[in-house]
């Protein structure tokens, strides 16, 4: 069985499965760097959203 399916069968959550698929896709495209890129992009998206809300809160509080 291929690695992609082999790992997928062990994963329970659909979201985790989707993340795994994107990790594998990154790996197929650009190897280890591809995985790094995919994960960093996802992390950055959440972190950027977090930063935007944080800025709003800072404005809200003022000072």
């Amino acid at each position, binding site marked *: 069985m291929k690695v992609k399916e082999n790992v997928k069968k062990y994963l329970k959550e659909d979201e985790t499965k989707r993340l*795994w698929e994107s990790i594998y896709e990154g790996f197929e495209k650009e190897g280890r760097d591809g995985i790094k890129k995919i994960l960093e992009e996802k992390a950055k998206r959440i972190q950027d959203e977090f930063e935007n809300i944080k800025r709003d809160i800072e404005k809200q509080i003022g000072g």
Partner: protein
Amino acid sequence: MLSITKVRLKGFRGFVGEQEFDFYSPFTILFGENGKGKSSLLNAIEWCLFGNDSIGRNTGIRERIDWEIKNRNIKECYVELEVKENDSEYKIKRAWKSKTRDELSIIGSDGKTTQGEDAKRELVKLIKNFSFKDFLTSIYQHQEVIRFFLIQEPKDRNEAMDRLLGLSEYRNIIDGINKAEIKGETLQNEIDNILEQIKAKIEVWEEQIREKKKELNNKGILDNEINKDGAKNLAANIKNSLKDFFLKINLNLTETFLKVDESDFDKFSALAKHEITRLRSEMPDIKKQEEIFEKRTKVVEDLNNYINAQGAFTEKNKLLQEFIQKNGKIDELEKKKTDKENEIKEKENEKEKISLLAVIIEKSIKYLKSDMVIHKKTCPVCGTEKEGLLDQLEKDYQEKYKKQLEEINKELEEKRNELKKIEDLISEYRKKEEDKMKFEGEFKKVSESIRNTWGIGEREDIEKWLNNFKNTCEGELKAIEITVKEKQEKLNKIEENINNFSKIHEVLKLESQREKARNIERSNNWKKLQEKADEFKKFVEEIEDIISVVKQASTAEARNKIESVKEKISEYFKAITSHPMISQINFEVSEARTGGNSYEFKDQKGENMIPILSQGNLNALALSIFLALAESQDSPFNFLIFDDPSQSLGSSEKFKFLEVLNKIGGKRNLIISTMDKEFFDLSEKTFTKTKIVYQFKDWSQDKGPQVEKGS
């Protein structure tokens, strides 16, 4: 099953012109030193079958990163395999086009050519969907795997084992995930930091509120007035006070201020302050005060100018009068000068007369002394004869005329000196008179200007008039100062109220900020922030979950694969090494902490066998694992490739390994590449079936490998 019968290649890595190699025999041996093109030929088979899957990072083979397919010195690059499956023959050709693109074509037995996507699909069918990684595990024994297996570091051996078992992909995926370095608590920590910062801010604001309230209390504002209503009341009070004030001084408040909403604290405060500033500059009393002050300044200035001009003129006049008193008037000086000049003239005439007489006597003496004169007693001027004439004349000349002339000259000098003194006095007089007139003119000019400025009559005393006016101004100033002071005090009071109002407003703003900060954890934004932190945490947990599952899947696959071939591994190991202490090899597989699997090799007693294995034994173990896996897999290929398999084998192990290969040869064609002369010589003796030998003699940049075919 698919057999390779021929490889034709051009421009592939170390190869230059087209060369072809037969692989139809049970044994094909590629022999030659390193760097002569043996491995490139084997790589060409991989590339033709798997294209870009055999290149780059994804292969899990370090050497394949930045691997160059096309020889830099030649334009064309292709590899063509002639393969056979049952009765069908195919020509699979892959041509290099660019780093990312190649062109695949397949010619079937019927002569029909397929290209592009069709060719790819046909190839996948031919190799039964066998992947490059499967190929590495069960068809092509790479020399690097043996090399890593021989390294004493367990980490490298574990990696080599993963590679032998075709599990490098798992290991690489875990490496890739770890490379991203995504940490779980990052955002939650940031939330905790924000909370700490908010707490600190609240403390600062509370301190500021306390300070400001204290200041307000000191100004008579009670705590129960420091609120919105208190501020509104104060604003109304300020507005009314300003209205009253403006009314009293007959000025109007601006429309903007009159219309401003008192509850718009910022705007109200700014506009009220502006009204105060305007008042201070436009208030009539203040304007009048400024006008009088200006007049007073001017009159004082004029008074000073007048006194100075007058003083200067008086001084010069005084000097002139003193001079006259001492030396007389100018007419008297002029008369003295004329008298002196006449005296000098008279004296000069007298001198002239005596001089002429003296000349006559001098000449007469000279005449009488001359040898030409005989009558020395006769006077050459009057003809009178006189005894001792010459002596008499000489005596007269010395005593009378010469002395007289000397006296006259002395007198003349004295008179000239006296004349010079008189002339100097006249000149001094003129200078003093000029000065007096100059300053007199200045004084008149200043007086005229002051009279014109202030309208002072010709008969009026300027100084007195100016002094009177100055006193009047000062009196008025004193009177208006009291009125202005009273009004300024009123304005100060209003201004103080505005400042108190602003301060109350500041307290309210700080209190509002503090409340917002206190309630921030209940706000929607905070909820969203927490959600993002949770999302990130979940994301990290998912990554950790995936890492764990990848490790789990890799370990499970490793265990399954080993379990299915462990007997075969033991069998091959015993056949190659005849190790006296090892009759059975057992494997224990566990998840390695850093990714990939960790392997322990145990003997029949369950003891770690690595410490008692030689390098040759380790080499044999790697070969045994490969052979066992190759045998177990359902492979579409009827051949096996060995690249430098005898790296550390002893002579006896080499022979035994060749015997093992001899048994396999025939069932499957074996392609063996070696640089080991002993191994090569032994293979000549050991292999009992047909073989083709390619000796890689040399390699040059322009010709590529120079190969000799034998059998």
